């Protein structure tokens, strides 16, 4: 399956990938409304890790054998074996954070308002995930490996 791969050597730590993710997953899909009108501000599903000159954006790896799915006790985290995507079904999530503890990449985040979790869904409505498209320096690649 196609996944999003970061390229640390050209990531400039601008965080525009996070901003694009927020806009894509906002109600309005408008950058200014998403940030200024939607409260609380939506949370990004990817995370730029930084230390000095090193930076890269991490998001869900959509593992073949996902520890988050195994850890989920309510059946809210599921692996869609057809598309390969690890999906989160919000209506089933009870906010126990088991998946957060299980994820070896630390890329599942809390939704502070709804007390559930959020994670990367590879932007099902787009041909290329928003973060990849927004990155100004081609530091994110969406490809089959």
């Amino acid at each position, binding site marked *: 399956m196609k996944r999003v791969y970061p390229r640390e050597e050209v990531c400039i730590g601008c965080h525009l990938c996070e901003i694009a993710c927020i806009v894509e997953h906002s109600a309005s899909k408008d950058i*200014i409304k998403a940030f200024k009108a939607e409260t609380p501000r939506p949370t990004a599903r990817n995370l730029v890790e930084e230390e000095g*000159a090193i930076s890269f954006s991490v998001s869900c790896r959509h593992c073949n054998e996902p520890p988050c799915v195994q850890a989920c006790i309510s059946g809210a985290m599921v692996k869609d074996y057809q598309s390969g995507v690890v999906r989160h079904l919000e209506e089933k999530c009870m906010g126990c954070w088991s998946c957060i503890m299980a994820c070896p990449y630390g890329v599942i985040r809390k939704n502070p308002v709804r007390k559930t979790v959020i994670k990367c869904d590879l932007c099902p409505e787009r041909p290329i995930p928003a973060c990849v498209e927004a990155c100004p320096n081609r530091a994110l690649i969406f490809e089959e490996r």
Partner: protein
Amino acid sequence: MEKEQRGAGALLYYDQNQNYHDFVIERNPDKCIQCQVCLRQCSYSVHGYDERHDEMRADETRCVGCHRCEALCPTGAITIKKNPSDFRDNALWTPWHIKNIYKQAATGGVLLTGMGNPSPYPVYWDRILLDASQVTNPSIDPLREPMELRNYLGAKPDAIEIINGDELKTTFTPQIPIEYPLLFSAMSYGSINLNIHCGLARAAEEMGILYNTGEGGLHPSLYRYGRNTIVQCASGRFGVHRDYLNAGVAIEIKVGQGAKPGIGGHLPGEKIGPEISLTRMIPEGTDALSPAPHHDIYSIEELRQLIYALKEATDYQKLVFVKIAAVHNSAAIASGMVRAGADVIALDGFRGGTGAAPTMIRDNVGIPIELALASVDERLRQEGIRNQASLIVAGGIRCSADVVKAIALGADAVYIATAALIAVGCTVCQRCYTGKCPWGIATNDPYLAKRINPEIAHEKLANLIRAWGHEIQEMLGGMGINALESLRGNREKLRGIGLNEVELQILGIKHAGA
């Protein structure tokens, strides 16, 4: 002199100079989403985030006008403007002179700058017009007819001898084919980083042209682009060894540079990291000082010795370029250079860029490349030695029309450098010497250098050459010429506008209407 962060506990009074800043930053509060991209991208720490009030702030006194924040702001909330605050009008004491005096009175130092001479001297390219064909010699449509831009650099024989009907008897010295009359000019590894060098090398390879290493040696990863490389041998001899000399297709002896004629170079020790120390062959952290002269060249005879030493070291397989800054007697010097055995003469005009130069030198020494080119070409023709060397001009070539005019004035090709840097984002903020280039170009700071993705740089540089190539073809076609070679030195195709007799005479062109 960098101002300390303003804030709690700071004194209220600052040196007079620091408040007379050049730019103001307008941030549209309706558009700003406090994402802080501007803060993260500014290498001069202009932008800040005030957590208590949840708003972005800016210390405009630090802004150099690089426009990085403006370019990256996802909502277009930022506009960088010239500071409208001005001194009383005075045709003699301009704000530029006044501010420079304040700076020097505060520091006692030489004013430093980067990039090329921005002063309002005449730009002769803009006072020269091209001809176009009409009914008697019709124009050519390059989309339908073949149009030749290929060119060969190197000395051409005085005459060609053919035996047995079709066999060439004359032996040629090495020739380098270039597919466009454009080369990337010398920029050293150190003044710019490896990512840019990579982009230049790959673009040169794709487009069939050459790039120039500058005087910093050659990174091992770039030896594979040898067929498209000119290696430079400058007064500091940094990175020069046998393999380096043999790595490219040509060796350039840099005698002078347009941005700072008569001046040596200085790459400060802080910039000599492990990789640069390796290619320059000097210890880490030591200053790289290139002397003003080559200490083994004090005459044309000694230049000849170096030219032939390099030819000998490379088995007469490489072309030897000699680059000088355009100065008052360039024509006589160029004649000497050709007689000393140079295969290519590179002339760098006073608009040429640099990583760092004293401002007064950059803005007041040297001459416009157009005049130097015309006089050198003319002199070499008069002496009957124009065929013995190719002529490349550099220093402020801004567009394809400048290239076409340069060729009609006698050049074989042009060197571009500032235009290449602009292609990858440079906004000519003239702060290359600080090492903090926010576009990741004139810096080796690993955090900033990542801003140049060699792949993107390669694409943009190749696109620039491609685009200029198309335009050059159109202009040639418009003049009824189907090969670049037929335009070289064809001054009949040029006319001056608003130029006086002396200028027209030096350029060797007629006035428009004549």
